[in-house]
């Protein structure tokens, strides 16, 4: 699926929730469910320090597609990471570079991507794009 298709799918899923409580409960479940990164990559080199929560990001190139794994010490942050990984992982670097994250506004989670939150997510998206630039250069 393309990045756009996945984003549309997520918007559709979130449209079913009646209020913020349901949205947050869903994100908390996402945050609790899977280990999003292998322990060996949860290193200081991969850490993004927000004032509020910490985020770890790791990227690998597999068959010309970028695979992201990530984690956070805060559950809501981790829930949003799960959504971002679903969108950006296993995509071609050039598609990642051409995409944006405005779908986050549409699913009512805009405030978590605000720089004032300082939760590491803004830097994480920047980091994802940086990886895409780096691997794009490697591919071309």
């Amino acid at each position, binding site marked *: 699926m393309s990045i756009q298709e996945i984003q549309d799918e997520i918007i559709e899923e979130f449209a079913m929730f009646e209020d*913020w*409580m349901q949205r*947050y*409960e869903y994100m*908390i479940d996402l945050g609790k469910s899977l280990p999003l990164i292998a322990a060996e990559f949860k290193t200081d080199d991969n850490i993004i320090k927000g*004032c*509020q*929560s*910490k985020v770890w990001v790791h990227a690998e190139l597999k068959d010309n597609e970028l695979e992201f794994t990530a984690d956070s*010490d*805060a*559950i*809501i*942050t981790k829930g949003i990471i799960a959504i971002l990984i679903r969108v950006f992982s296993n995509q071609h670097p050039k598609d990642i570079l051409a995409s944006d994250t405005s779908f986050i506004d549409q699913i009512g989670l805009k*405030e*978590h991507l605000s720089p004032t939150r*300082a*939760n590491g997510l803004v830097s994480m998206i920047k980091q994802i794009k940086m990886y895409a630039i780096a691997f794009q250069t490697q591919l071309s």
Partner: protein
Amino acid sequence: MFDLNNIRKDFPILERTVNGQPLVYFDNAATSQTPNQVIDVIADYYRNYNSNIHRGVHTLSQEATDAYEGARKTVQNHFNAAHPHEIIMTSGTTHSINIIASGYTQILREGDELIISAMEHHSNIVPWQMLCERTGAVLKVIPMSQTGVLEMDVYKTLLSEKTKLVFVNHVSNALGTVNPIDEIIKEAHAIGAKVLIDGAQAAPHIKADVQALDVDFYVTSAHKLCGPTGVGMLYGKESLLNMLPPYQGGGEMIAEVRFEKTTYADLPHKFEAGTPNIAGGIAFGAALDYMNGIGFDTIAAYEQELLDYATEQLKAIDGVRIYGEAPQKTAVVSFNVNEIHPYDIGSILDKLGIAVRTGHHCAQPIMDFYKIPGTVRASFSFYNTKEEIDMMIKALKRAIQMLE
């Protein structure tokens, strides 16, 4: 008389809603809200006598200068400084601290020692670290106990003839601890060191008397005590302020400017380069008048009630751990619930209209001390109510239910 309903009417922001819920504002230690009496003074300045101060011969400039210098006198009286020119108007506590840190660059020698405490805000750590880098002076730290109290015995052992300056906050922003600054100042003076007290957190709760304390420098920000942001003050003893070099060069701070040599203005102007925040300075005075109108003793007694009530309610919740349990505290409760990340609790409380602070509160060394990523901090002001604390407790229980 303390009439809570009337007081709340002075603060228009308390009527707004957040995320469809009535606002419960418990982030007062970060910044306090502004009463109409202060908002009106700012509006009145821009509507009626906005003009530059200290140099115009025209009427507006005279009116603005009188109001600004009147505010300086209000600040002087509030902190009981001996002279109005011992009050330097600054952009805030951070600016005030940097004036002193910069000023001591030429005075300190390699191997001199500076003492700070384990519970300082970053703004009372970093400027001194930078000063140490410039001068080769060494920074020593007064440790604290698990309950958040400074270990005064260790402090006494840190003091020596090498100690030149001591910096401690009057009240800790993250823990609410009221530090024994009287004793800290006396001990430092006994060996000839000078003391700067960071009063940013104390100012809205405790009226400091700089002469009774015999403190060398006392600094604070207006926005912590119902005034506007971008204004603060540096109190310094006249002889010390005269000894220190200017911080910034520019207009207002000069006596005579020649290309060969410029001479500096007398206090307080020597440290007030450029056009200041005039409306803000005047409003700082209005904020102090407003709070003194209610009375600091009345405020402290009521806030103590709020603190006791909130502490009791929080402790009744399973898994709550409070950080900072000093016997003397201002109305601040820092806490965590089990292993739940403070960011998660803060995000859900916000959705329920409750404004608290989460994170390390610009005091990372304290978080490292407790080995935690941060805390949730609820800080109360005299316009808050017990009903609002009930709303926070209810919201917190809901957050815990969602997160656990």
